[in-house]
């Protein structure tokens, strides 16, 4: 199989097997959540925008939220042969793109997304093995299912593997 690159948009998710690559470009206050089964190398990436589905009036797009997004991602990964008990995670994003001069909820939504993501993963017993969260800058991430590396690229804040 070639190293196919799957692009994940906002409120979107994709799953792949080794050596597929999962990417999401320009993560701001959203959180990119990678789940990975190190044995089968089945991998998934969901790009969530909001914390919890039950707090919203319109929750028809399940991939918009941390709780339902992670749930669906796991289901899709199991179909590809992942064992949910073996899953580990890497997360990135949750930035505050604009300074807090604007004093509204939307300004700390990045932090709320990150907190909700950690809570949901915690309840599911999925360890977070690496994270790059917060700050006031955007991130582009690429996950290599072949070896489990997550590349995080920024404008002016460097490039690194986590």
């Amino acid at each position: 199989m070639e190293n196919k690159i799957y692009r994940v948009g906002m409120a979107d998710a994709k799953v792949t097997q080794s050596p597929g690559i999962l990417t999401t470009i320009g993560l701001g206050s959203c959180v990119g959540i990678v789940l990975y089964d190190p044995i089968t190398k089945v991998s998934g990436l969901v790009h969530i925008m909001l914390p919890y589905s039950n707090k919203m009036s319109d929750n028809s797009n399940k991939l918009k939220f941390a709780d339902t997004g992670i749930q669906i991602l796991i289901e899709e990964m199991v179909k590809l042969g992942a064992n949910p008990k073996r899953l580990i995670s890497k997360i990135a994003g949750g930035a505050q793109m604009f300074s807090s001069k604007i004093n509204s909820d939307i300004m700390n939504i990045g932090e709320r997304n990150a907190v909700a993501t950690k809570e949901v993963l915690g309840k599911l017993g999925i360890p977070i093995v690496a994270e790059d969260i917060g700050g006031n800058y955007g991130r582009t991430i690429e996950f290599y299912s072949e070896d489990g590396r997550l590349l995080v690229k920024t404008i002016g804040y460097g490039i690194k593997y986590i």
Partner: protein
Amino acid sequence: MRNVDINRLNEMYLDILKELGNIGAGNAITALSTMIGKKVDMQVPKVKILDFQEVSDIFGSADTIIVGIYFDLDGDVKGNILFALDIKSAASLIWSLMGLEVKEEFDELEKSALEEIGNIMAGSYVASLSTLTSLNMKISPPAISIDMAGAILSVPAIKYGEISDKILFIETQFIEGEKLIKGDFFLIPDINSFDLILKALGVEVNGK
């Protein structure tokens, strides 16, 4: 309050929203033209309704670096406003306004000047709509970010995401006479404010 269904907005509503963009952006761009002492042309506003997956690519690619100046819109009409420029245009704007040549990065003074330009433009935009509709609208102080387009656009998208699975925005592009400054002005009204805007303009809601 009954919501307008974003998927079922008919042509008439879209035309009204375009006209709002026309009036608001017309005023904003006149303000810009006065500030820099140059002619600025404006294109016909576009009303776009996009899925979130499509939003981050409206500047070509989600990793295009842009200068974004963001405002919360509050009062009777809620939502947000984003004024976006590419890096070159922002530097030309600083040059036109202050006679300063931007080095590799924008410094604090230059960022603050861009915020202020955005503030004057957004203020003119909102003031003209407020006069037209007799609705109260006020903007927050400006906040600037120079980063990937996708990351900047995630902010209004998330706000919309709380109430809808699609985002509606009124986009007006403008270009300075010598084509050195190109920019985009986005009014992103909260979907719950539609009823109010349309009623204020004497339009019967729900397509009767």
